[in-house]
């Protein structure tokens, strides 16, 4: 926005004098809550430490240990598989529910209310509720949720789908409602079948919603922690190459449990956190870049 001289004199200059009130408190909190911990985190990933006071520089050895840890590799592949499965499942189901609810249907608002409700419940409570349900079902077959990694993986997929489908549905509904009635009318006049209308008119027009939702489900899956902790806590665990591997652990939980082994692992946990940050950042930036390219083309 090109600022006129008048607005500079009238608006900008007086506000500037009030910087200590308008911007300083937030900026200080931001430094305490983000900037300083971030910088210290990078530094400590190269150290062996119990607390920051006794940190000793060890170079890249934490990173070497992190990459050699079979538990970290296991958590990475788990997270990747979990992300792919939940992105597809959540988005397909959420889109079709949203599509159905935007057609003429009695009770659509009530259904929308119900589907969104699980979102309001915190991840830890959700994990507890579903572990009770899964254990109750599996008991009939003489087994339990943490007996086997497959149960834990699919259990988490079901839990997260139940939680997030309603959220993504809301975004898809907003996208679907933004499609103009004229365009659908035109498609109808041109004799488009229901299927043609869906794939050639509706889906291209809700592309922005689809990108938003895949982005959200992708980052949510990579950052998943509470649900993972409360549902299985990473169990069951096995010994692999002399190290303990928690079969159903995702990346965020693996970082946390590494830190809690003992203080000689603090540095490794922080190094894993840096690797995790780079991974999440690369995913987020490349997804946003892909979106931007699409927007330019339109």
């Amino acid at each position, binding site marked *: 926005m090109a600022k006129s001289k008048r607005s500079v004199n009238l608006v900008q200059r007086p*506000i500037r004098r009030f910087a200590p009130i308008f911007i300083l408190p937030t900026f200080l909190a931001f430094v*305490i809550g983000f900037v300083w911990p971030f910088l210290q985190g990078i530094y400590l990933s190269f150290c062996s430490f119990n607390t920051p006071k006794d940190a000793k520089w060890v170079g890249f050895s934490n990173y070497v240990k992190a990459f050699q840890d079979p538990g970290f590799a296991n958590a990475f592949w788990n997270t990747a598989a979990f992300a792919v499965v939940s992105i597809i499942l959540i988005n397909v189901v959420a889109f079709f529910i949203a599509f159905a609810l935007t057609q003429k249907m009695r009770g659509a608002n009530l259904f929308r209310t119900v589907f969104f409700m699980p979102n309001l419940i915190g991840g830890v409570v959700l994990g507890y509720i579903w572990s009770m349900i899964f254990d109750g079902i599996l008991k009939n077959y003489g087994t339990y949720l943490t007996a086997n990694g497959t149960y834990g993986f699919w259990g988490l997929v079901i839990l997260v789908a139940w939680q997030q489908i309603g959220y993504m549905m*809301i975004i898809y509904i907003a996208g679907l409602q933004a499609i103009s009635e004229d365009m659908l009318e035109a498609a109808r006049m041109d004799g488009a079948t229901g299927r043609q209308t869906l794939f050639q008119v509706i889906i291209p027009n809700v592309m922005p919603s689809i990108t938003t939702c895949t982005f959200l489900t992708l980052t949510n899956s990579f950052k998943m922690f509470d649900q993972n902790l409360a549902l299985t806590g990473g169990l069951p665990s096995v010994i692999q190459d002399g190290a303990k591997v928690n079969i159903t652990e995702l990346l965020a939980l693996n970082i*946390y449990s590494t830190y809690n082994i003992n203080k000689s692992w603090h540095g490794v946990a922080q190094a894993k956190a840096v690797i995790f940050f780079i991974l999440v950042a690369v995913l987020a930036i490349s997804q946003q870049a892909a979106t931007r390219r699409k927007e330019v083309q339109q």
Partner: protein
Amino acid sequence: MKKSTQYSNLSKVMTVLFALLSIAWLIPIFEVVINSFKANSFVNLEPFALPTAESFVGWANYIKGMTFGNYPFFRAAFYSFFITIVSVALILLLCSMSAWYIARVNSTISRVFYYLCLFSMIVPFQMVMFTLTFTADQLDLNTPFTIPVVYLGFGAGLAIFMFLGFVKGLPLEIEEAAAIDGCGPLRTYFNVVLPMLKPTLISVGILELMWVWNDYLLPYLVLDRTKYMTIPILVQYLKGSYGTVDLGATMAVIMMSIIPIIVAYMFCQKHIIKGVAAGAVKG
């Protein structure tokens, strides 16, 4: 003519189908409700059975749930309420003020802060969680009364970004007129800008409320756990002693933690759904 009757038949079928799906969707919550009225041994034995004359214990689980696990539920609920309300109020007020400053003042601080906010949005909490705990301990931010500062700091990036999207669209002329009429920046902000920000305040407020109320890891790491627990911490603490714990009473605790959210949802459903849709557009 034929087509329209077909359509309405389809619509009826869909309504029935979605009614059934909605009921199925609520089963997990229903499960908690029925088990919260059953004696402990029956929760373990038959988690899906409705309470019978034998297993029904009335409100006993709720009464026990208030106190058991060595930590009274009311204390955790008080801390959860306090932390959530103060943190969200701080974030809304201070971040909207910062966003207005950044939008109106073209200076190095504005630009640096803006880019740092953008950057912070791609940093996962795990990256800063250990070091944030050390910093919070050092600065005495480890109590429910000071932890809102940590929430403000970690939540500022997203909140400022969302406010900025809206502030940039506000017409400058109104603020110029206020300045000509003799309003200083503070009065302009509180009497002119803030009222115009109301829809965004609601959207951002709802997203922050859902985050802080349900947050587990940040308070778990930052707070002095021997003294302070929030509801999610209490629930996880009870689950930690799985097997020895009274499941019926735990279900009652979960019920008590869900009820305030569901009640709030019933009252401001429209705003919540709008807030989610608006927050998502910004991505």
